């Protein structure tokens, strides 16, 4: 046994001891797709005592993108002269009538990019094409979009624009606590979003809502330590903010990234799958940069579109039900033929459950109020 496995085991033993002392059910939520997958991958769910549940929240950017926004991307990709640049995660997400992957087989020019700067380079290389960046993601990804817009401006590119659906983690956490009927005892906060926004931004969740927040990285040791601290804080009854990922996350975040975000974007109301529209929960381009706003450039109207019939992704990503409660899960909806976005994304809750927890077990029910 390695030193590391000994450390993981020690945290799990502490967790078990604290959970036994608690004598009540507790549920914590992670709000990061990578945490969702890694918690399953390292078997943490199966190691939790019966009264401790880890829920997956709205932390996968693909999964939280509203159906109407997915439809807009697909619609734009089908326009003549448009080249849509997307991160690979969005390719297979199904809109109301199609997906980017399907549109590509029909001849749409859709490129999978590694970095937002690839879209800028493409716009420079192909001046006759209208290059649109499908700007999806949380605060980790948004600074790259901001820099891409600034770079397009510096180069004087008129054929570059971004369809921005960036989301902010904190308003979603508040919306969950304010409006979703799920009992939460604390949050396992996302590591890389926190690299950008800093640890201190979670303090209102701790002070106003009385919910402990523990920031962790992505390895087994970090996840086990984070859950251990959440259970211990629940036992102590003293909500606190703890940063267990200080090697990457500072109290105030990445100042340069925050400055770039502030310069290019402003907070706007955003539509979330499962949480509807939340004021100031997304990022929109400031008026100064509106010439790079694809929605404005192509006259796209914000539309609400219903989720696929029978799909419960919205409830899954807010902890209101488990994938097993969805009749489509593992039958009509599988990773090969996904219906909802949580089954499409490799970080989606449904895909994680399909891979690691497909069999129904006694402990698949979430704790509800």
């Amino acid at each position: 046994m390695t030193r590391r496995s000994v450390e993981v085991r020690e945290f799990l033993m502490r967790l078990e001891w604290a959970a036994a002392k608690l004598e009540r059910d507790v549920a914590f939520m992670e709000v990061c797709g990578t945490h969702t997958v890694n918690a399953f991958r390292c078997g943490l769910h199966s190691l939790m005592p019966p009264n401790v549940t880890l829920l997956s929240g709205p932390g996968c950017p693909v999964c939280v993108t509203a159906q109407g926004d997915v439809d807009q991307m697909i619609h734009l990709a089908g326009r003549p002269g448009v080249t849509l640049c997307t991160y690979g995660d969005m390719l297979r997400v199904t809109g109301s009538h199609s997906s980017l992957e399907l549109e590509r087989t029909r001849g749409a020019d859709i490129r999978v990019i590694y970095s937002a700067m690839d879209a800028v380079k493409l716009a420079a290389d192909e001046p006759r094409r209208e290059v649109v960046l499908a700007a999806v993601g949380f605060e980790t990804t948004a600074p790259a979009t901001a820099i891409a817009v600034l770079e397009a401006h510096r180069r004087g590119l008129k054929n570059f624009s971004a369809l921005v659906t960036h989301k902010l983690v904190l308003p979603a956490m508040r919306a969950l606590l304010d409006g979703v009927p799920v009992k939460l005892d604390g949050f396992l906060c996302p590591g890389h979003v926190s690299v950008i926004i800093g640890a201190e931004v979670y303090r209102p969740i701790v002070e106003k809502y009385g919910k402990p927040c523990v920031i962790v990285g992505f390895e087994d040791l970090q996840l086990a330590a984070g859950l251990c601290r959440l259970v211990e804080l629940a036992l102590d009854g003293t909500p606190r903010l703890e940063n267990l990922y200080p090697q990457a996350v500072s109290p105030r975040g990445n100042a340069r990234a925050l400055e770039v975000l502030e310069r290019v974007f402003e907070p706007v109301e955003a539509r979330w799958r499962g949480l509807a529209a939340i004021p100031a929960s997304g990022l929109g381009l400031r008026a100064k940069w509106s010439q790079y706003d694809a929605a404005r450039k192509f006259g796209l109207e914000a539309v609400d579109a219903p989720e696929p019939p029978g799909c419960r992704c919205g409830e899954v990503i807010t902890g209101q039900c488990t994938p097993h409660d969805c009749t489509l899960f593992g039958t009509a909806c599988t990773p090969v033929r996904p219906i909802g976005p949580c089954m499409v994304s490799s970080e989606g809750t449904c895909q994680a459950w399909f891979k690691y927890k497909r069999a129904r077990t006694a402990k698949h029910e979430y704790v509800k109020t």
Partner: protein
Amino acid sequence: MCLAVPAKLVELRADAAVADLHGNRVEVNTMLTPEVKVGDWVLIHAGFAIQQLDCRTVEDTFAVLEDLRQRTEGGGHDPAKR
């Protein structure tokens, strides 16, 4: 999607850099971490260095990955070797 990986910077140009990502050379944009130098470890997300890292942490991470690799190559799923 917020996946980020640690890599070591091996070349630095104006606002662009080359990083060694476990043997692969990748181009990295350093506009979000303007203070970095050649030899620094950074966290890379979608082509951008989003944070400079403490090198001891990175070495710890790679030690674990190497340990896993050796176990996979050497022992497969033998529970005795876990």
